[in-house]
């Protein structure tokens, strides 16, 4: 399939530059800054809560709000990471190491500036990959049968189960629970009813958006209520000139490119996300040198208090934030070409696209090239808005942290309940979201990550239906999953992923 025509892209850009659409993007970016910068409330929470709001809007408005929130939310998690050593989201944890070191040395303005520019560059470079790679991949995906979809869906579930949390068993159990929730309702293949507990409201299955609100917003909200965090005061800060900021990026241009490629590649892998991308990029930014330095005799200092080498800290922040935001474009590639989410936010975006009557998959770009181009244009404008707003407002960003949890958490609770209701005007969904959210909170307290659970809800039906259809189409011959080359490669990658994960955990256990 050809690339999207330049005229289509230009028309999309003109449409997106309409003041009304710009306002929606601005609202999304502003909401993303608040959700991303509030420790514990992530971009995923924000997108899950905002998705029901798009029910009465058009495609452009919906995507403008959600993609603006997505991009800004991924960046803004770096604000509390830098200022109070508390990552706004797991993807910003690597930023906290060097970003907070800089802040403690009076260089918070530099660290925030680096995070803003690195996030923008990461977003723009991954957007380029999305523009160039997605149309070709969509054409390739047309060759996919239920055999490949089954293998890809299973690969996505296993990927997220292996990278989420410290325990592989908990990751796999979480994914299985999610897939069981996805199996509730009328069986798509045979038409029989499963696990509905006699409730007619469950015959259509567990509704996706209330479930996402439950696991990402309600569970987080309760976890935040249980935690009491305190922030240490920072020393007086030095302002950072834009020129000096630019100099850092010129000196580290190859690091930016490498980190953006890592972030985009990790984003493309179904079921992964910014956390692994940020740590991978951080690791290749010079963390090894730091480890060697720390290997000297004597007790190791706390990471945030260890001696600062400013160029190294700058490289750490640039690498982790570039990769973190490069995931956004990468994660949209499998979503828009295969209908498989690349990360947790794109899992939520599936619901948003379905609200707009769009079924994400290989035909999306072919049949809706104009809408695909608008998504690209919205991502471009969002990345640039983050740059402009971020640089202009970086002195004020710390104030987001001043919203007291005693006000923020009840407001999020209201949005959870109202959002769960608004999607189908169904009071049953409200109760369901509350019950699932409390269950998710209990699982989280026992160390179960929410990402495998949610990916299980989304990918479970895809895996099951395609498994059964593939077997039906091939006379119940299971060897078809290893004789078709793409499926064989995916299943091989799945086995390798599981093997490496087990090996890594055994090594870690042996070291400790």
């Amino acid at each position, binding site marked *: 399939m050809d690339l999207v025509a330049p005229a289509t892209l230009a028309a999309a850009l003109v449409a997106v530059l309409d003041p009304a659409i710009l306002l929606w993007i601005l609202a999304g970016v502003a909401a993303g800054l608040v959700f991303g910068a509030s420790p514990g409330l992530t971009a995923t929470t924000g997108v899950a809560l905002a998705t029901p709001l798009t029910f009465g809007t058009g495609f452009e408005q919906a995507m403008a709000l959600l993609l603006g929130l997505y991009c800004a939310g991924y960046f803004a998690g770096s604000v509390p990471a830098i200022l109070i050593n508390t990552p706004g989201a797991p993807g910003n944890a690597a930023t906290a190491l060097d970003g907070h070191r800089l802040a403690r040395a009076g260089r918070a303005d530099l660290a925030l500036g680096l995070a803003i520019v690195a996030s923008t560059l990461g977003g723009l470079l991954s957007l380029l990959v999305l523009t160039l790679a997605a149309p070709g991949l969509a054409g390739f995906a047309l060759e996919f049968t239920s055999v490949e979809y089954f293998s890809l869906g299973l690969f996505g579930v296993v990927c997220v189960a292996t990278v989420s949390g410290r325990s592989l068993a908990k990751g796999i159990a979480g994914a299985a629970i999610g897939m*069981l929730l996805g199996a509730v309702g009328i069986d798509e293949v045979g038409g029989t009813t499963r696990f509905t507990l006699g409730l007619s409201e469950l015959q259509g299955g567990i509704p996706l958006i209330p479930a996402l609100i439950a696991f990402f917003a309600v569970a987080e909200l309760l976890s935040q209520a*249980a935690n009491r965090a305190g922030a240490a005061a920072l020393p007086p800060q030095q302002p950072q000139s834009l020129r000096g900021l630019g100099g850092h990026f010129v000196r580290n241009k190859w690091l930016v490119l490498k980190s953006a490629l890592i972030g985009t590649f990790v984003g493309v892998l179904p079921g992964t996300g910014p956390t692994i991308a940020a740590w991978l990029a951080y690791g290749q930014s010079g963390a090894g040198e730091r480890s060697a330095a720390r290997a000297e005799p004597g007790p190791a200092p706390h990471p945030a208090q260890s001696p600062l080498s400013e160029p190294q800290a700058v490289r750490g922040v640039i690498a982790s934030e570039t990769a973190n935001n490069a995931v956004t474009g990468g994660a949209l590639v499998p979503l828009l070409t295969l209908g498989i989410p690349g990360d947790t936010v794109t899992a939520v975006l599936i619901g948003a696209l379905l609200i707009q009557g769009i079924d994400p998959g290989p035909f999306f770009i072919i049949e809706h090239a104009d809408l695909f181009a608008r998504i690209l244009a919205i991502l471009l404008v969002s990345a640039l808005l983050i740059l402009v707003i971020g640089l202009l407002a970086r002195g004020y960003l710390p104030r987001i942290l001043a919203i007291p949890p005693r006000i923020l958490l009840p407001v999020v609770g209201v*949005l959870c*309940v109202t959002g769960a209701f608004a999607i189908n005007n169904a009071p049953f969904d409200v109760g369901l979201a509350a019950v699932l959210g409390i269950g998710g909170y209990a699982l989280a307290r*026992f*160390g179960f990550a929410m990402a495998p659970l949610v990916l299980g809800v989304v990918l479970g039906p895809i895996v099951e239906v395609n498994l059964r259809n593939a*077997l039906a189409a091939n006379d119940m011959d299971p060897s078809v999953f290893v004789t078709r080359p793409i499926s064989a490669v995916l299943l091989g990658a799945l086995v390798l992923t599981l093997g490496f994960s087990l090996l890594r955990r055994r090594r870690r256990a042996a070291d400790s």
Partner: protein
Amino acid sequence: MSDGAGAPLVNADRVAGATLCVAALGVALAAATIEVLPGLPTLSARFFPWLLAAVLGASGLTLALRPGDGDLRETLDRLFAARAVALAALLLLYALSFRHVDFRIGTWAFVASSMWVLGSRRATELLLVPALVAAVVYTTFRYGFSVLLPVWTW
């Protein structure tokens, strides 16, 4: 994950693992009651739930036999933290009464009581912030997004 050799008999992971095993058994039994259509040219509707029950059981067994170092008391203390439990109860009450109570009144009551649970003690804050939140959310959803929220007619 530790090898579990040094973990105490009652440990957070062991309890989670045992719970998963019981849940897996429950799922397997429930799946056995799913109707099976004769002549379906592929796996029955029971197969996938049974497979997932087996995965759940195996994961539970792994956790129970090779637990990490999670202390049960600490985990339960975190799970039943007073503020979280109170907020969960309020949220559940708000959600279950959603269809019966005027949205503006229910929202005001939920926000005010949640703020109190989370440490707010100033009367003006407890009166004004919930009223503002209820008004803004109601107006946004009702008139911005045309969502018919439950209201009492007087």
